[in-house]
């Protein structure tokens, strides 16, 4: 922070930052810098001083321990008091936050603070948020907080324009990125309140099948396919999709399938089929066969679960 303006805190008596008890359990051996920075920030907070120097004190404290939520709370009070709903000033605060975010990608506090700033802002813009979101996801493609914040933004701004394309680009980069697949479902479920129009759903099914063909043993794309049927098609698998799933499990339902089981391309295809067969009493036999094959050959660690599913068939 070499270019930061110099602030004077000489009139502030730093508050103690620990209880000072002899033999206190898990006492952290704070260094002098930490005691001073935190002590001053605490003293300013106790006075409820809302000033530029107090703002600076909170940024110093947050730099040292990003998870120090008390300082985030105080910082928000200062920003509200100093800037109110002045968009230009709030943009400056967002600039500071961008820089901080890039350096602390896994922090919890950043995101609710960011949401609070946008709610305060007189004219918040999704465009302003996109670069930082892009950069954060580029750096860590499954960062939970960033994806969650992106969804919050989409709903806050009511703007779904870029979302499917954004998810597609991440899936093109790594077809196993489950966060990106979830984002597609978020778009489908929220963009149109009544659910996606028929042609959009058809397009989505087509897209998903293409991705499955690219990498058949992928839990994310198969879960998504199942999700599309469960959420928008009453969970009813049609003959075409059954045919599609069967193409990854050749010979598995043949009457003379050997004990060792044939090679298949995807255990998730077999799961998909088993679930569909388990919905109809007429196809319980196929469901049982699929669950048994999963238990014996393709996914044996889940044998308790497969056994439970087989028991449920007769129940």
């Amino acid at each position, binding site marked *: 922070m070499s270019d930061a303006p110099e602030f004077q805190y000489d009139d502030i008596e730093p508050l*103690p*930052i*620990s*209880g000072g008890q002899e033999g*206190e*359990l*898990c006492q*952290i*051996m*704070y260094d002098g810098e930490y005691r001073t920075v935190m002590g001053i920030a605490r003293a300013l907070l106790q006075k409820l001083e809302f000033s530029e120097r107090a703002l600076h004190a909170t940024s110093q404290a947050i730099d040292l*321990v*990003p*998870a*120090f*939520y*008390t300082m*985030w*709370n105080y910082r*928000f009070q200062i920003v509200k008091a100093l800037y109110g709903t002045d968009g230009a000033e709030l943009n400056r605060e967002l600039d500071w936050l961008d820089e901080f975010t890039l*350096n*602390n990608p*896994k922090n*919890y*506090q950043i995101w609710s603070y960011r949401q*609070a700033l946008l709610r305060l802002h007189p004219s918040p813009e999704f465009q302003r948020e996109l670069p930082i979101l892009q950069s954060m996801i580029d750096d860590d493609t*499954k960062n*939970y907080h960033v*994806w*969650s914040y992106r*969804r919050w933004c989409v709903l806050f701004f009511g703007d779904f324009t870029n979302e499917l394309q954004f998810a597609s680009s991440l899936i093109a*980069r*790594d077809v*196993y*990125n*489950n*966060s990106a697949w*979830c984002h597609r*479902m*978020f778009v489908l*479920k929220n963009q149109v309140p009544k659910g996606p129009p028929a042609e959009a759903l058809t397009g989505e099914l087509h897209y998903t099948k293409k991705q499955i063909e690219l*990498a058949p*043993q992928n*839990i*994310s794309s198969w*879960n*998504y396919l199942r*999700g599309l049927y469960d959420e928008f098609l009453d969970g009813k698998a049609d003959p075409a999709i059954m045919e599609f799933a069967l193409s990854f499990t050749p010979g598995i339902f043949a009457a003379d399938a050997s004990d060792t089981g044939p*090679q*298949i*391309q*995807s255990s998730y295809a077999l799961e998909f089929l088993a679930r569909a067969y388990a919905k109809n009493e007429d196809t319980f036999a196929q469901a049982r066969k699929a669950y048994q094959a999963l238990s014996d*050959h*393709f*996914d*044996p*660690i*889940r044998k*308790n*679960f497969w056994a*439970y599913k087989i028991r449920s068939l007769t129940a």
Partner: protein
Amino acid sequence: MNTATAFLEACNELYITLKENAIPTAWRGARAGSSCESAVCACLVCVCVLSACTHCFPFTRALCSFGLVFRTNHLKKPPAPMAGSDLRTVRFINTQLLGRRRPTVELVSEDEHDLQEDPAIAMNSLSTETTADREEVLFDCAELYEALADVEPTLFKHAHRSYLDYALGHPLPPQMKALDASQPWLLYWTACALRLMDPQWLTQDVQRKMVHKLALCALDSGPYCGGFGQQAHLVCNYAAINALALCDNIDGCWASIKREGIYEWLLTLKMPGGGFRTGALLGECDSRSTYCALSVASMLGVLTPELCEGVEAFLLRCQTYEGGFGACPHEDEAHGGYTFCAAAGLAILGSLRKCDTAKLLDWCSARQTNEEKGLSGRSNKLVDGCYSYWVGAVAAILEAYGLGESIDKSQLREYILKCCQSKERPGLRDKPGKSPDYYHTAYVLMGLSATEYSFSVRDCPQRIQSARLVEQPDVEPVNPIFGLPIDVLARFVDYNAAR
């Protein structure tokens, strides 16, 4: 430059970068493709330091290892994509992409072409960041399972005890200030871990000190904060109450919990959508913070209709198409930590059956993989010991309510005992190659407990009962909804019911 020199330089660089608070800059610089070995070392040391606090479901960003730990095997070159001759790739493709359990030796070949012409392999194998990351872990786990094939796994209890006692018997080094706003967590993790291994190991002396420390973390009105002089925080309050429960009402300490004040404060955190947020002014509102409110209110006997209004609907909306639960009700990704919070929260409300339990069971089961044997927290993410509890507890809750079996407990136990601990360093860890920390030590042990007992529930969630699955369990039974030893929870709940 040899490795030792590079390492020393890296440490020096790290010291400077830490001083300047610019770890990510060094990290990015290294990742940008710098071939300078020392930069890579620096970045790896940064990762060692940061990984403990950032990568998994963090109730806090817990920097829990002392000092810097550097493992030279982090210098293993990352596997080249699509290298058909690479044994690891072969193993990976064989077991993961093809889901078969054919012995690896069949695929070991001098001739690369042989492998590429194997029709089963040539088809549709696709190497991405996800597969490369997993491949590394598969290799590490396979190595350990091979080396320990004939070993009856046991918990290195005394080593772990010394690791936990250290934190309770010494001042903590300055770098632990990363936990400055999460101090009740450290108490809860260490006390719970000790107590699970042996009820006698949490001594009265430590219990007394815990009570004094937590009193310093409390506001006059009742709620608990992350540390002395801080503001109240919902998840720190949860850790503090659980830590106090572990103190066995020593010197009558439970009477000092101001439950009316805590209750009034909880009401102020309630949001219109039904969830609770972590602080009165700011803070996230998600399934985690909501669980923390419910757990504390239930344990203190103040789970009123007013407090519960709308909470069930909020948690139900967090369930996703995959079957697990996310952080927020806007179709977040299903995640082990949030799934625990939502499922345990629903159980506390008596509403577990209102979610799609079949899909939840399915999702839990899919977290366990054949090769690692441990649990992951999300689809296509890596195994991590802490999900032995987050996901293992959900499986235990479903089991207790008669809603089905999902995971293979004995295989998970094997992952915990063979991959989450080592003879070299006390404490439990995320996975091979990671350093132990207090967060993982607690949750891996709690997960271990969920593998050594079966669970059933008669009337209420505080009264979950357990039965041994192994002849000599390593740890005491944990209540999978509240994250406390079953007997500890029962006494605390009884006390508050009679208050």
